[in-house]
């Protein structure tokens, strides 16, 4: 099945591209969504052992998780002085604390005396100071050693030598990021286009509506890669669109897809099996019907309109009123599309209004075969409103269904489909007689970029 002689990576699905859709929308999209940024990065297989080898996972703990920026919590998790958040990644544990009104700091969660973790389970907490539950050594919110019972026995200990170990901590978009590398480059050096692009969609003016944390039966990379392309939509979700999504790779750390919702091109499926959605093609009314799960006012497309324009306008009114925000000038694309930015190694930010998610994928403890998926709905906040207290995460174990998470509504079955292949894939890595997985040059380019950057971290002397 050979393709044409075009250079690798330059072929695209037939039919209108995302750029064509955005150009014909009823309201123009913001500048960042009009950009395209892709180049061919190779077509070699990706070794399966990267997903299954405990030795590879251990090296990731040493060289990746020990050295990369990662968000630990939202600022609204720690609004007041003394509020803290424990964040765990593999064998490591960090305390993020608001140590003064405008100061957020992060410390290694381990007493400098005999190593005991100062705070237990991951999540929100509060204490006026940190006190070790073992011998009662205590530390100020700035990490400085304050109380030392039987100080007479420790002439070799002082605040200079035995305060809590501080790690780099910065904020962006309402997220608190930490880096376990004391010599880490600033977060800004790592963010590529994110600050510029998200100046159009400020995530600091959003609040957590829902947080679901689930154990998934696959390595963290396989789990996140199930969310990095829309190529799977046809087979996994039985969905007609996704084949003409746009993929962008911005440097080492940031990539994006834009997957149009509410339009549809039968040509994009021209070599997919069967005639489904192609002969006959869906009507605009049928496309609108697919979007009825969003809660639309219209059930028919009026003459002169498109399903996309009608849905976007219905949602401007409904979501705008429900949230108390003015969406009247918001583009069709931001209203409807699945626009997904990825920040290396494991973070996803969606600037959309109807699809306003944040994802984070982590190893589940130190297990190479399972992962933790944090799913957050990050909803726009009215101008001037303060962030309400965030909800506690709903925790789902590996065998539970997303339909058990109250508030997920129609998304529950979708995420069950997205994650339903993971156990099969994780086992398939192990039984495969082929040493690696194969990626599409365009639609799966973001996955390749992550592995390329991961390789840089895995080198002993990575920056």
């Amino acid at each position, binding site marked *: 099945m050979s393709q044409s002689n075009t250079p690798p990576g330059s072929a695209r699905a037939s039919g209108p591209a995302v750029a064509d859709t955005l150009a014909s929308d009823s309201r123009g999209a913001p500048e960042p969504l009009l950009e395209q940024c892709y180049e061919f990065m190779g077509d070699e297989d990706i070794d399966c052992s990267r997903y299954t080898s405990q030795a590879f996972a251990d090296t990731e703990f040493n060289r990746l998780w020990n050295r990369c920026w990662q968000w630990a919590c939202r600022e609204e998790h720690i609004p007041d002085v003394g509020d803290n958040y424990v964040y765990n990644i593999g064998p490591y544990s960090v305390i993020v604390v608001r140590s003064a009104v405008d100061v957020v700091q992060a410390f290694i969660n381990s007493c400098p005396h005999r190593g005991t973790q100062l705070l237990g389970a991951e999540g929100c907490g*509060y204490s006026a*100071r940190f006190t070790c539950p073992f011998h009662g050594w205590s530390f100020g919110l700035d990490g400085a050693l304050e109380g030392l019972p039987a100080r007479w026995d420790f002439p070799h200990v002082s605040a200079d030598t035995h305060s809590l170990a501080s790690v780099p901590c910065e904020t962006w978009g309402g997220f608190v990021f930490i880096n376990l590398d004391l010599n880490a480059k600033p977060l800004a050096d790592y963010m590529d286009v994110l600050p510029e692009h998200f100046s159009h969609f400020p995530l600091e003016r959003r609040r957590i509506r829902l947080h679901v944390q689930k154990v998934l039966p696959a390595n963290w990379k396989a789990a996140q890669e199930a969310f990095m392309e829309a190529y799977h939509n046809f087979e996994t979700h039985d969905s007609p669109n996704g084949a003409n999504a746009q993929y962008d790779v911005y440097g080492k750390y940031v990539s994006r897809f834009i997957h149009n919702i509410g339009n549809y091109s039968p040509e994009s499926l021209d070599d997919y099996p069967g005639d489904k959605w192609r002969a006959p093609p869906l009507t605009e009314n049928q496309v609108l019907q697919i979007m009825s799960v969003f809660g639309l006012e219209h059930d028919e497309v009026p003459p002169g309109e498109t399903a996309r324009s009608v849905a976007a306008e219905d949602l401007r009114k409904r979501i705008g009123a429900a949230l108390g925000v003015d969406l009247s000038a918001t583009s069709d694309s931001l209203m409807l599309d699945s626009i997904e930015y990825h920040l290396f190694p494991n973070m996803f930010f969606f600037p959309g209004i109807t699809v306003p998610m944040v994802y984070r994928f982590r190893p589940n403890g130190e297990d190479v075969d399972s992962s933790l998926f944090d799913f957050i709905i990050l909803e726009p906040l009215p101008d001037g409103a303060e962030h309400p207290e965030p909800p506690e995460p709903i925790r789902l174990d590996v065998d539970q269904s997303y339909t058990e998470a109250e508030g997920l509504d129609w998304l529950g079955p979708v995420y069950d489909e997205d994650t339903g292949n993971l156990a099969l894939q994780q086992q398939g890595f192990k039984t495969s007689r082929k040493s690696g997985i194969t990626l599409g040059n365009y639609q799966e380019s973001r996955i390749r970029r992550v592995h390329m950057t991961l390789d840089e971290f895995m080198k002993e002397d990575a920056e």
Partner: protein
Amino acid sequence: MSETDFVWVASLSDLPPGSTASVEIEGREVLLCRTSEGVFALDNLCTHGAARLCEGKLKGQRILCPLHGAAFDVRDGAALSRPAVTALASHPVSVNGDDICIALVE
């Protein structure tokens, strides 16, 4: 338990939602917590380090100890996080109009 076991301890208007207060009844320090789910009464001393929980923080349905950060469920006193492992005593509460009354348990 009869109505007479309940004693008046505070006015609801003095306990805004999301706040706590400590009161003393029969020589025992009791913590009142007003959350989105109602008014709850617990012993005020942390079962781990005996710190005063009224100096801690109410978050949702949890009270957090100011000393080690141990969390307790205000609805039933259950210890939710280490270093505390023993539940706080939880006292029945009755709210009538502006009157908060509680019945001390042993």
